[in-house]
């Protein structure tokens, strides 16, 4: 029997001003990374509500990565600092819920760092794939 190759599902939230542009640059330079990574554009990493991440895990995501501007470079001056603190808390809570630390990540990727974007995504996808399929977070409200 042939086992279907496991493909992780990865959601990447990218800040419009830096990492989204960094992803475009990776494209311009034809730097490959797995197609499992799907990018959602947000105006700033601080726009990412923890609910979005929980929702992704409820819907079957295997990994969620947040990319923002380097500390000190936020387009809106301070958004990424909020992101950093919020996500530190959220990720430790997710860890407690059984979603391993390796499935969540915050990375700083500037608009000039196409190579870093691709490398980050390759690394993240590899780590997530190594963990195998994720436990699905259940939205208890949906249970009857």
């Amino acid at each position, binding site marked *: 029997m042939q086992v279907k190759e496991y493909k992780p599902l990865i*959601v990447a939230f990218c800040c419009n001003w830096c990492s989204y542009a960094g992803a*475009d640059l990776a494209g311009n330079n034809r730097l490959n990374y797995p197609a499992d990574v*799907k990018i959602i554009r947000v105006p700033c990493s*601080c*726009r990412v*509500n923890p609910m979005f991440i929980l929702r992704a895990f409820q*819907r079957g995501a295997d990994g969620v990565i947040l990319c923002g501007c380097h500390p000190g470079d936020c387009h*809106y001056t*301070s*958004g990424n600092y909020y992101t950093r603190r919020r996500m530190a808390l959220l990720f430790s809570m997710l860890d407690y819920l059984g979603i391993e630390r390796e499935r969540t990540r915050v990375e700083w990727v500037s608009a000039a760092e196409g190579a870093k974007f691709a490398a980050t995504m390759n690394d993240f996808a590899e780590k997530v794939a190594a963990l195998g399929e994720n436990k699905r977070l259940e939205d208890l409200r949906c249970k009857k």
Partner: protein
Amino acid sequence: MQRIGVFVCWCGSNIAGTVDVEAVSEALKREPGVVFSTNYQYMCSQAGQDIIKDAIKEHRLTGIVVCSCSPRMHEATFRKTAAAAGLNPYMVEIANIREQCSWVHKEMPIGTEKAIILGKAAVAKVNLNTPLTPGESPVTKRALVIGGGIAGIQTALDIADAGFEVDIVEKKPTIGGKMAQLDKTFPTLDCAACILTPKMVDVAQHEKIRIFSYSEVSEVKGFVGNFDVTIKKNARYVKEDLCTGCGLCTEKCPMKKCANEFNLGMDTRRAIYIPFAQAVPKVATIDPDNCNMLKNGKCGVCAKVCTAGAIDYTQKDEYIEEKYGAIVVATGFNPISMDKFDEFAYNQSKDVITSLEFERLTNAAGPTAGKLLRPSDGKHPETIVFVQCVGSRCDACAEKGKEYCSKICCMYTAKHAMLTRDKYPDTDVYVFYIDVRTPGKNFDEFYRRAVEEYGVHYIKGMVGKVSPEGDKLIVQASDLLADKQLKIEADLVVLAAAIEPDKSARSLATMLTASMDTNDFFTEAHPKLRPVESPTAGVFLSGACQGPKDIPETVSQAGAAAAKVIGLLAKDKLVGNPCVAHSNEMMCNGCSSCERVCPYGAITYEAKEFRMPDRTTLVRRIAVVNPAVCQGCGCCTVVCPSGAMDLKGFANEQIMAEVDAICK
């Protein structure tokens, strides 16, 4: 229910080479809300845009999804296309299937699968899009420049020459700033006063420019295009409109022993004074800390001698309210205090001075009339030691000094050394340096001239200690290249003190909600691409308040800031970004969480009456976002515990829908 059209672009073979565009447009046809789906070779071409326009009209589309290159590339193009066909431009979403799909994946099935998912996410989002209209606000066509040094002067002149009114607010009794204190300027050695004072006169005579000297900004309200600013005019006890600047009072005043700040305390002035001969405005000012009349009610000599009747001992601080469309910060710099560096004996010997003091000592209008004489005994110094990097490039844990390079010291020290050797060839001049940094037009040539033609001794190493012994200063230092410890008997030691932003900058930044770095330099909106704008709309940066700068750099930045201001003031209305936060007043509980995280101060609170079902009224505190100030980062939406705050164009529901579409 939306009626959505999907347009898949081939981008020649850029997309079509890795993505089966036909399959994509077929797959997306079946998504909810989609009533039309097609693909075309170049969607951004005129023909491609016509397909979109026609489809909008023919199928009465309420929203469109373009699967193409990055929105950073053509979002604006397709928004215009939609608008031309009568569709609200914010009903357009782009699925990035080129940069983030076809270009980074090699295999057709994989690329196609991902492109379909990205398309579905975009369709899911458009289903929840609502038409957005950018807000408009009027522009007050006047600018405020805070700081009257060379940065502020140049910015004001450039703005005024374009025909807009400008007010300069200067803390000191005269404009001119640090440049007015300098002797010569590197690398051309033209005299600072000769190039600055004509500009000061231009400012004074310009019909579009007003100068508020001896004044400070005390309050700033409003936002880009509509700032309300309160200016505090400090009492100078002299009526500016009557004073002719004749200077008689400054000769007759009996209080002779006041430290002259213009000469950095190296000589004295009277209690009523004009800082220097070319001051603008040339109006006397009474120093209330030293005036006997103001302190004890005895004297009144200046009033007696003033033929213009300009003296007014009863003058009070005055507050003036003005409206501006743009504000330029040009608050400049100061050398840091040498108190924490007393290994160089600055507080122990008068003959250890800072470089700015050296400027005054060599300036023809300075305390020694330009003769280089030691402050302690007025003798001509035979050996002079210059110490570079005093307080610059320090580590944060060293508890003193600044982490950055002050940038101007290498060049002015080369200038000082060269001028000294030029005027007094009998003088031995040593410069202790860590690195000599000369990146500027003709800068390195200038430094080399100091070494090669003028015989300045440049020694790689640092001074460890300066000991005043008798009338000499023993300078103990390392010569790293010779691997020696030197002891030089010097007559004068000049410290290249690090520079720091003016102390007033921090409170000003708070008033302006402009951001600063850890060193209190104002931060620019983008370090490369928006260097003269602060992240706060309508606030611009000029000169050393943004970072250490020499004169040519300051002047070019001042001109750039002026150009940005002119661009703003030339508009009659400001069109905002419609993707801003807004609060649902029914859900808001007035908790202030959003206000605390907003980097722009765009959120205020108001008490609003609500009619209750039982016909009573209830007054509740609710958050209100000023759309002209909000920049749309969305930070507030995340902290809102009740979910009242949302971001237009990137609403919670919309992003959630994208997540769902991707994770299906």
